[in-house]
């Protein structure tokens, strides 16, 4: 915005920045400043990463670990969206519900998803319910908050118009509030997916016997920092991909609405 830059020089500078990042990393790894055992070079990590996709580690290949993480994530995220969005919309419409839910919600927001780990173990044991609860507790708040805000700030004109036409509560929520809050809801889903994905890894770092988080713990107990960092890379790539997917959805919705 400020200093205008051609597309070409923007890309060149980006490449420069990226190259600088890896160069700095490689330099640090090559220097005696940090022992190699604890900061492997980018090349070593890339090699280990490739190896993990070929040979199973702790029972599975990297792809299989990712798949099992992703399954947990999908279930928890879907549940958060399915409960959170309708709840948020309803809270935006029914003031009493807002009053009932808000205080509980505000209190629970600060409790870390992984603080639920002991309860998840007690309530669900080895079942899939445990990880789902933890992901859910990470992904739920943004779903609710954004749906609520979306519904709350719908143009009062529309609401009034619908009211004079005698719309029922149900139609009011589904036909007036919901369409108007779609951009806000999608933005919420994006945040929610990011937080859910992060919580999952937290849960897997502590209790699980598969998944990328588990792979990292095992890499750690084998004093293999390259394995740990490969896990981080994999987590980063998937997290990035999820965000990209939702972002393109967001862009599409905005385009459709002619913004």
């Amino acid at each position, binding site marked *: 915005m400020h200093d205008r830059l051609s597309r070409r020089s923007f890309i060149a500078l980006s490449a420069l920045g990226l190259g600088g990042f890896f160069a700095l990393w490689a330099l640090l790894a090559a220097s005696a400043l940090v*022992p190699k*055992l*604890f900061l492997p070079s980018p090349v070593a990590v890339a090699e280990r990463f490739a190896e993990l996709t070929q040979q*199973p*580690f*702790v*029972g599975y290949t990297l792809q299989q670990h990712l798949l099992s993480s992703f399954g947990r994530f999908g279930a928890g995220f879907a549940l958060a969206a399915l409960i959170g969005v309708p709840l948020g919309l309803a809270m935006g419409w029914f003031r009493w519900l807002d009053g009932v839910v808000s205080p509980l919600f505000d209190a629970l927001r600060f409790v870390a998803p992984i603080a639920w780990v*002991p309860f998840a*173990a*007690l*309530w*669900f*044991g*080895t*079942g899939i319910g445990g990880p789902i609860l933890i992901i859910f507790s990470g992904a739920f708040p943004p779903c609710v908050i954004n749906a609520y805000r979306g519904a709350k700030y719908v143009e009062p004109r529309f609401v009034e118009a619908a009211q004079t036409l005698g719309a029922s509560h149900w139609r009011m929520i589904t036909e007036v509030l919901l369409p108007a809050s779609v951009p806000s809801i999608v933005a919420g889903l994006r945040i929610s997916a990011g937080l859910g994905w992060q919580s999952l890894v937290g849960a897997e770092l*502590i*209790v*699980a*016997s598969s998944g990328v988080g588990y792979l990292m*713990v*095992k*890499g*750690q*107990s*084998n*004093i293999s920092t390259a394995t740990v960092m490969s896990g981080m890379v994999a987590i980063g790539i998937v997290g990035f991909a999820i965000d990209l997917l939702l972002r393109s959805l967001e862009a599409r919705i905005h385009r459709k609405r002619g913004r």
Partner: protein
Amino acid sequence: MKTVGKALIGVLTGAAFGAQAQVAEIKVSYQPALYWALPFHVASEKGWWAEVGLKPVFSTFPAGVPQIAASASKSWDVGGTGSVPAVLGAVRYNLLTVGLTNDESVGNALLATGAKAAGFMNNPQSIRGQTIVLTANSTGDYAVQSCLAKWGLKKSDVTIKSMGQAEIISAMSSNNADLGGLWAPNIYTMEEKAGAKVICSGKDAGAIVPGALVVRADYAKEQPQNVAKFLAVYLRAWKWMSTHRAESVAMMKKFYEVGGVTISEASMNKEFDTRPVYDLAGQLKVMNRSGAGSDVDKWMTQIGEFMKAAGTMPEVPQASRYITDDFLKMVERDPKLKAFANQSN
């Protein structure tokens, strides 16, 4: 609780093999890549579960505490775990200890980083004021506390930091901690890959650290015959391993690898050499209560006292409330099951 098995034994003796036609599902829990969990793997490879009419469904846990917690939701029926979690499970969820996995007194130890080990060993008093990293409420914790007691050190003489085994390995290998409580095979990982040394094991401190075979009380009441069969399969696997070392090591290698542990063959052999296991007769002997309580009662009560001192539980649970040899006796009394358990091929 004490009459759980007794009432049922009369009904079921001799019936254990009767229902072999139908296969009973049994949920078995353990911790991956541990020595005492190897028999589960061996029995599966050999098809021994099916021979007694059991179909195991396995679940694994990174440590004893989450394993115990999962028993609350009936996620598993039987399993192996450390003696410390077994006592915790007895107090919290009525878990019964029905046998021993092994004597892991050597497999739980206090380690020091290579550079500092000799100094600490020559002068244990220099440990005063140091920081020790360990996993609280574990057999490793118990071994470390026993070592401190042997040197006349109190818990308040050192700083204890509790964390998972993986974190301990990270901290010690990067020289961010000098002293750590670990259990095998993590001990071997530290020795081989980071040059750490054992400065005192549970055995050195004169403590017996057993591993426990545990059962949910409800399950024991409902399916006592399955518990007995489970024990028989477990015992047979050890019996077989005692006469097939080379094959056992090969299986251990595969089992450990799947559990994410890669240690040398020498260390694997060390596991076999330093951790005594019990066959049926041996189990019955250490659990025999005639006279002044059994050996197992004594060992577990000592662990209970350690946990009481740590503030984990207000009272030491009474051994007879949760330790029972009823199911081992069921195996003993059933000729077919007994022969099965003692088979070495």
